[in-house]
């Protein structure tokens, strides 16, 4: 259990972060998120007893951290710092065994109980097989696990980690965070870690402590945070990016431009990858007719696209169809993304055929049959190539046969 009351953290009397109150139960994982230089490291060092709080009190297991001696503190709190360690020729096992420091005697010789704790820590982190390997040949992800195991060998009631996954590759990031959460539950210890990856934090943490500009902006469950519009506010996304609360993803929006525009007909979540590709190509798009609540609906909205949507589970009304046709007629190209068609969205196929008839280059992505389409592609990369070509020519001059060949070549 870690508790902080009205804590001010900082260096040399200068507070970096003030008015921090938090309570982390045993078996609970708390993530600290916030921009760089917002005081995350300073706060964690203060909680760990490595810095004295400028104000307020930190408790671990009901005891004041400032009143514990270093040995007692080491038996209560394990720490993983951002600093890169270079323990020379020590093996993994020897590094983890350093965590037994507060338990061993004058000479530091390991007793059987110490060896058992070292093995247990290696096992909990899942690196028994690395025990005899030299630390300096390991990957960054493995090294970080060794440092976690070393902290666990201290048998702490609280584990404090400063940006444990920042320098890891994506797979190692998820793996380490899930390992931490499992250890947190199994060992029933309080865990607090600072993270930059808001998307991961929202998925693994029991609670979020959000800090910015020297203050705590929010403290609560990830759900509360998202409901209150936290992510958008925290990173001040502005025009360039949007946070999709339904999928917990950050979406990069296309820059507004007067050039090449595309209309996308999609649904049932099939359109989302196409929207993201368009945003990356900086191609503004409108889309329809979608149903509210569809994944496509949320992704398109967070990307800033114009969305023509019908109420969920309702048949597409004539009014929405007309609206879509008007909007699509102004586009330079149309994309029909194959998606399941049923009674409520049958009109979408008709819409595509109507656009093709009106002479708008209509490209089918997937295996749907659309009368009069210009090209058919099976791969998203192919679609991207065709759109780039179309945008460059700035007109509808590309011979139809060329496009169809391109589509067929891809497969």
């Amino acid at each position, binding site marked *: 259990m870690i508790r902080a009351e009205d804590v001010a953290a900082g260096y040399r009397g200068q507070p970096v972060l003030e008015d921090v109150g938090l309570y982390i139960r045993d078996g609970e994982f708390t993530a600290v998120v916030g921009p760089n230089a917002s005081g995350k490291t300073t706060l964690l060092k203060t909680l*760990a007893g*490595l810095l004295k709080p400028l104000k307020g009190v930190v408790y671990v297991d009901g005891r004041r951290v400032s009143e514990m001696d*270093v*040995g007692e*503190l*080491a*038996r209560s*709190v*394990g*720490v993983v*710092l951002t*600093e890169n*360690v*270079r*323990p*020379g*020729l*020590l*093996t993994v096992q*020897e*590094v983890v065994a*350093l*965590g037994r*420091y*507060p338990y*061993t005697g*004058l*000479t*530091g*010789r390991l007793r059987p109980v110490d060896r058992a704790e070292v093995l247990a820590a290696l096992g909990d982190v899942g690196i028994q097989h690395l025990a*005899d390997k030299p630390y300096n040949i390991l990957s960054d992800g493995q090294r970080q696990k060794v440092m976690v195991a070393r902290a666990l060998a*201290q048998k702490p009631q609280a584990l404090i980690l400063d940006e444990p996954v920042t320098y890891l590759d994506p797979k190692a990031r998820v793996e380490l965070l899930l390992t931490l959460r499992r250890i947190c539950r199994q060992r029933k210890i309080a865990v607090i870690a600072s993270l930059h990856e808001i998307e991961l934090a929202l998925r693994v943490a029991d609670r979020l402590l959000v800090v910015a500009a020297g203050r705590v902006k929010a403290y609560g469950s990830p759900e509360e945070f998202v409901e209150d519009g936290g992510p958008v506010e925290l990173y001040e996304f502005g025009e360039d990016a949007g946070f999709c609360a339904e999928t917990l993803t950050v979406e990069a929006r296309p820059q507004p431009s007067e050039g090449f525009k595309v209309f996308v007909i999609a649904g049932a979540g099939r359109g989302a990858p196409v929207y993201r590709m368009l945003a990356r190509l900086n191609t503004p798009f409108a889309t329809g007719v979608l149903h509210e609540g569809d994944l496509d609906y949320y992704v398109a909205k967070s990307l800033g696209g114009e969305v023509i949507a019908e109420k969920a589970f309702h048949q597409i009304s004539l009014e929405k169809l007309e609206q879509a046709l008007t909007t699509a007629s102004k586009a330079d190209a149309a994309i029909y993304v194959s998606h399941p068609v049923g009674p409520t969205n049958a009109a979408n196929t008709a819409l595509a055929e109507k656009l093709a008839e009106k002479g708008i280059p209509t490209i089918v992505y997937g295996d749907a049959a659309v009368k009069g389409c210009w090209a058919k592609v099976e791969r998203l990369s192919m679609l991207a190539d065709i759109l780039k070509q179309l945008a460059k020519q700035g007109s509808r001059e590309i011979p139809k046969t060329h496009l169809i060949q391109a589509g067929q070549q891809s497969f």
Partner: protein
Amino acid sequence: MITEQRHRARRGAVAAGLTAAVAAVFTASVALGSPAVQPAEALQALLGGASETANTIVNTVRLPRVLAALMCGAALGVSGALLQTLFRNPMADPYILGVSSGSVLAIGVALLAAPLLGITPSSIPSLYTAAFLGALAVTLLMTSISGIVRSVTTVLVVGVMLGYLSYAATSILAVLADIERIRAFTYWVFGSFSGSRWSLLTPAIPALAASLIFIALLAKQLNALLLGEEYARSMGMHIGAVRVLAVAAAAFPVSVVTTVAGPIGFIGLSAPYLARQLTQTSDHHTTIPFSALVGALLTASADLAARMLLRPVELPVTAVTALFGSPLIIYLLLKGRGVFY
């Protein structure tokens, strides 16, 4: 666990090999020279059973000299191992960091400057005290500098410059002093075991043995320091107390060595490096005793070479140790961060 057994076997073999080599160098050191003594007779002389000439040569000249070289070498090796971990710098060495020069300067002050002021503190205890104060001052200075400057090479350059400064001060003192005293003093400037007499060694041997044991007892703390001070503290180390103890523990044996033999370079650098390479570990429970063994072997061999290479002229020991020490430093600098420990 199998690997652990293999490591233990390897270390056993290395220890046996080093001990045999030390024994060989010891025997050669008491036997070789002018006049040469047969090894068998030399060993008899050690037990007091040889001819009077052999007895005198072996027991009053060569034995104290080789003992001094072995003990001083062990002390320099161990002190280097400690400094390298304390500074987190594989090139740290009492000679390079200027600790030995600090001692020489202090001895110079005691020998040359004090008489100018009308005091004559040239007794053996006052030399030891002066040397310790000089070594301690430089070690403290270097520790605080390395707290500010993180770069491994910057700290080294600062140490080398401090060495030059104290060399300059020593030279100025020498110019001001009279010829007789300078002759006595030059012995400390160059570094040689030729002055090893029982009177000088009697306090040195137990002092060096005690500091070896003391540093060996710091193995646990030094291991924790391999992860850096902040981690060491988070694992329960009293960082301030350990730093003070370590600084004193490194400075003390170096000052004793300097009083006995003057500044001896590169042993504190090479012995820990070789010890780690031979035993393939950075665990101080292993590297400290092995640094002592390697240091003793290197120093006694270097002294033997200094004596024998250009007979009857004797070389300063550092002239021999620099032959392998300087290339090692260049190698470490070129290889960069990868070889740390």
